[in-house]
């Protein structure tokens, strides 16, 4: 985190950078301590998609964070926290992150977005009448 970067919240919180390979063992340890998944957040950056895994215990938040490089898959959190499947499907569809072995995988149909990544209106083309367009 750069100097001068502000981290604010409505309660106590800690943030830690980890590697993708550390995610499951760290999440498993947190789960055994009573933490539960509160959110998985994706932010598009120049170097990839930053993924923040927020765990909650009462009013406290603990956040594990890493950047998923383009084209490199990340492990699913669902073996440890089954409730993570909604977040992971959304992140796959809207940010194009490949997530391996999601327990309930909607296979890119969460929001029926035609292509992974940001919706681009200028690249959208309507189907021809022969193809069923009206």
């Amino acid at each position: 985190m750069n100097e001068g970067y502000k981290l604010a919240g409505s309660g106590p919180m800690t943030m830690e950078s980890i590697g993708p390979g550390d995610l499951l063992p760290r999440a498993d340890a947190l789960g055994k301590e009573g933490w539960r998944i509160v959110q998985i957040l994706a932010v598009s950056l120049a170097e990839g998609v930053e993924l923040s895994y927020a765990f909650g215990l009462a009013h406290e938040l603990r956040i594990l964070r890493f950047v998923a490089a383009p084209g490199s898959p990340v492990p699913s959190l669902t073996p440890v926290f089954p409730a993570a499947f909604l977040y992971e499907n959304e992140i796959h569809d809207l940010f194009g992150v490949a997530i391996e072995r999601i327990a309930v995988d909607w296979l890119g149909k969460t929001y029926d977005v035609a292509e992974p990544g940001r919706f681009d209106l200028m690249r959208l083309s309507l189907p021809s009448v022969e193809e069923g367009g009206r």
Partner: protein
Amino acid sequence: MSVAVKKETGPTLIPFGPQHPVLPEPLHFDLLLEDEKVVGATPQLGYIHRGLELLCDKRDLADYVHVAERICGICSFMHGMGYCEAVERLFGVAVPDRARWLRTFWCELERIQSHLLWLGLAADALGFENLFMAAWRARELVVDVAEETAGGRVIFGSAIVGGVARDPDDETLRRCLAAMGPARDETLRLAEIMLRDATVVHRLARVGILSKEAAYRLGAVGPMLRASGHDYDVRRSGYAAYGEFDWNVIVEERGDCQARALVRLREIEESFAMLERIVARMPSGPVSVPVKGPPPPGESWMRVEQPRGEVLYYVRSNGTRQLQRFRVRTPTFANVPAMVEALKGASLADLPTIVLTIDPCISCTER
């Protein structure tokens, strides 16, 4: 001569939704049934995604409040306020005391109208049309007060970055409290019907049970979590003015549809009592402070207790007036896995009731 007929038996897969008479908004389940019993359910969302989060980098952060409020037509004020509090924490701005108390007033007003709206929808799902109409008639008195104090019946429009846009005087607030008296009395009468009528009890009691352990493990929030025995409410973290007066967290133990109904009905009564305390202690003074210039680079995580449960707002600044990222994790988004768990083992006929007692808001969830 008798002929033995061997029947092929096994689970049956049937679709439920996205259009269904009991669903106000589209939601789909692939249900796995053994006879009439649900043994598995796979949810599917995605029918009304609007991409509201993506607008944050195209609007000034002060203007984006109008978008945040429109995430949901039921919890609009809390969405606007939660966004504003996240941005204010990024700036390091403290809003005036009266603004914090007015925000708390409108939050509880919104909780009452949302729970009464739920009561009407639940009654409608049970086929109890009189109860549905009576609940929504009581709700009208509450949204009348929202209109008089905030300016809007559905979209309040009173949350701004730095405070609130409206300042109803103390006499108006006292008069509004009195005007809601009949709604409070009527709610008690309707709660008695909802909890004692034999037909309603038959549909709610011991139906759609979510255990204490499953509610926590699957990330349930709000009344769904509290009806399964967890004493957890984000208002206890003390945002707005919640840390400055006494109020009770409503908790039930049974985890069934009736417990979820009881939590919401008691929360209506508790919110009416909170409104009295808020108006009695409403401080005087300004209701906003100017928030100028760009915010510092950074991020802010804000948790708010909406009628359906905890909502999490995330804002990220790159040092300009247009946010780099806004994300809202709504309570229904968190409650979907627990909802699926509550469906398991239930009768197919009870499925609409179970879904309604979770009070899903799909518009919020898909943003």
